[in-house]
């Protein structure tokens, strides 16, 4: 990963919302704070704003670096910045941290005003649609009535899709990368194994581990290991690790024999040191629940009937988590509604993770698409 960011130093901001937010579950958040970052300049017509929605483990820190930290490049720094595919010389880009996260926006680690204690596991289950409603309030506060585009990869792509359904007039373009209109049984199964790892960790304490001064590190670490397997392709894993042994010989025990074990354990451990277990539970549930076609008896074309945006969808050939077939379902539903849609299927070896990596075919396509959007904004 490149540690040099062309955007330079960026500063996160926060905005407090005093009005209660009604959630899909029937619960509500009395008040909340959203962390966000902006890059570039909003034009006089307020027509060049792009909202970038984050996936499972990311945040409002999309691009740029923090002043006091090396290795602090934003999670989509290769996509967003001056001269990048999403060019901050042309667009006003907003990254926002979703509710329930552990990166500053109101989440389970924060104090529940009605109890005076951290929310913990009592933080209400939030959905993709709830996030979009919260993001829309941020857009209102920033004076953005219509986005040039709402964009996201994976879970972020679900938010972009939800935007096009819930606020059809508030975005001109919808950019959905490596995403799906709903999780498959297999996707949900992986999520549930991850959740079980956390829920059964003795340090979980029903979600109130903050009070016990512990963190369910093992559970969170295993959850991350499971997730990580689904982000990589079989070929990619074979090429990177194969059956390589850590110490050249079988150890005849249950420690680390293979490089892949070492890698996954390291990834799990690293993750468990900065991510919150309650947040992981919440976000995997948001993934599981997302299914806009459900309100239409499973008919995605019906669910997308009110959309007005133009769409760009990108999938990756070796992504088996959200395979190209899933993107094609969205394309098909859009075509049925005669919506404007461009769809690219990038033949890349890196599985689901490909959406975060630099691939000239992928980035050139996104750049070309945004160049055309920029012409409309001028």
């Amino acid at each position, binding site marked *: 990963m490149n540690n040099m960011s062309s955007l330079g130093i960026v500063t996160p901001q926060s905005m407090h919302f005093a009005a209660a937010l009604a959630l899909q579950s029937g619960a509500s958040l009395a008040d909340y704070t959203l962390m966000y970052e902006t890059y570039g300049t909003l034009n006089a017509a307020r027509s060049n704003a792009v909202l970038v929605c984050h996936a499972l483990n990311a945040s409002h820190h999309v691009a740029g670096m923090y002043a006091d930290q090396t290795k602090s490049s934003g999670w989509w720094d290769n996509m967003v910045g001056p001269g990048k595919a999403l060019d901050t010389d042309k667009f006003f880009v907003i990254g926002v941290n979703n509710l329930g996260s552990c990166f500053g926006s109101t989440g389970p680690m924060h104090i529940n005003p009605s109890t005076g204690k951290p929310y913990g596991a009592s933080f209400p289950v939030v959905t993709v649609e709830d996030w979009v409603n919260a993001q829309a309030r941020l857009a209102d506060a920033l004076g953005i009535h219509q986005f040039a585009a709402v964009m996201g990869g994976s879970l972020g792509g679900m938010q972009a899709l939800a935007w096009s359904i819930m606020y059809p007039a508030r975005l001109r373009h919808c950019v959905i990368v490596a995403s799906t209109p709903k999780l498959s049984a297999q996707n949900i199964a992986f999520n549930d194994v991850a959740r079980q790892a956390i829920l059964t960790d003795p340090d979980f304490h029903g979600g109130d581990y903050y009070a016990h001064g512990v963190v369910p590190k093992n559970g969170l670490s295993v959850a991350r290991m499971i997730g990580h397997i689904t982000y990589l392709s079989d070929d990619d894993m074979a090429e990177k690790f194969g059956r390589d042994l850590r110490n050249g010989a079988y150890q005849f025990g249950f420690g680390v024999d293979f490089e892949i074990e070492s890698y996954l354990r390291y990834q799990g451990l690293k993750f468990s040191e900065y991510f919150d277990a309650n947040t992981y539970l919440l976000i995997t549930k948001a993934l599981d629940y997302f299914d806009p076609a459900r309100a239409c008896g499973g008919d995605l074309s019906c669910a997308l009937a009110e959309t007005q945006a133009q769409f760009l969808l990108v999938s990756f050939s070796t992504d088996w988590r959200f395979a190209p077939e899933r993107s094609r379902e969205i394309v098909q539903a859009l075509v049925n509604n005669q919506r404007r849609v461009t*769809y*690219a299927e990038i033949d890349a070896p890196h599985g689901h993770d490909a959406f975060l990596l630099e691939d000239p075919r992928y980035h050139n396509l996104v750049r*070309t698409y945004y160049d055309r959007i920029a012409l409309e904004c001028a």
Partner: protein
Amino acid sequence: MNFNELSVLRPDLAFIAHWIKPGAHILDVGCGDGVMLDYLQTDKQCSGYGIEIADERVLASTKRGINVIQQNMENGLAIFADKAFDTVLCLSSLQMMVNVEAILRDIARVGREAIVSFPNFAYWPHRLALIGGRMPVSKSLPYEWYDTPNIRCATIYDFEELANQVGLQVIECVALNDGRPVTFLPNWRGNLAVFRLQKK
């Protein structure tokens, strides 16, 4: 893109464009760099989609602002509903396909009308090359036999037969030579066969 620009760039497409009604909903199977849809969108207020497999052509089509869907045409047109389009174009692509018959049936399914073009193998210089004992290499078939993407060699008569077989009725058949229609001995003198078809 206006008509003059299209005429210079692709006279064959300019000829075919006359057959397309303004405002029609179009599917362009094998849309290449998207030039035809670009023209139809801007000059004839048409809507629709292009299908293309090659990365660089998907990019070129996106640059032109047309709706391009990247997929292998050999996998069929399953994402499109029956009679979804006023006209389905398949221009200079059919000769590269393995499942010609299946694609044609799918084209007949999704479109009310179809326009298909392909290099005419019976063009006289091709016949001459064969009489001389060699596979033809010409402007319309510019590849050597061992590296050609044009794996289906057909003549105007051959295609007419297959079209009938898959339930398509020939409304018009024109042989073009460098974009100009040939009326005298078309199966000899035309290097591009163009069929306008309707479902029977």
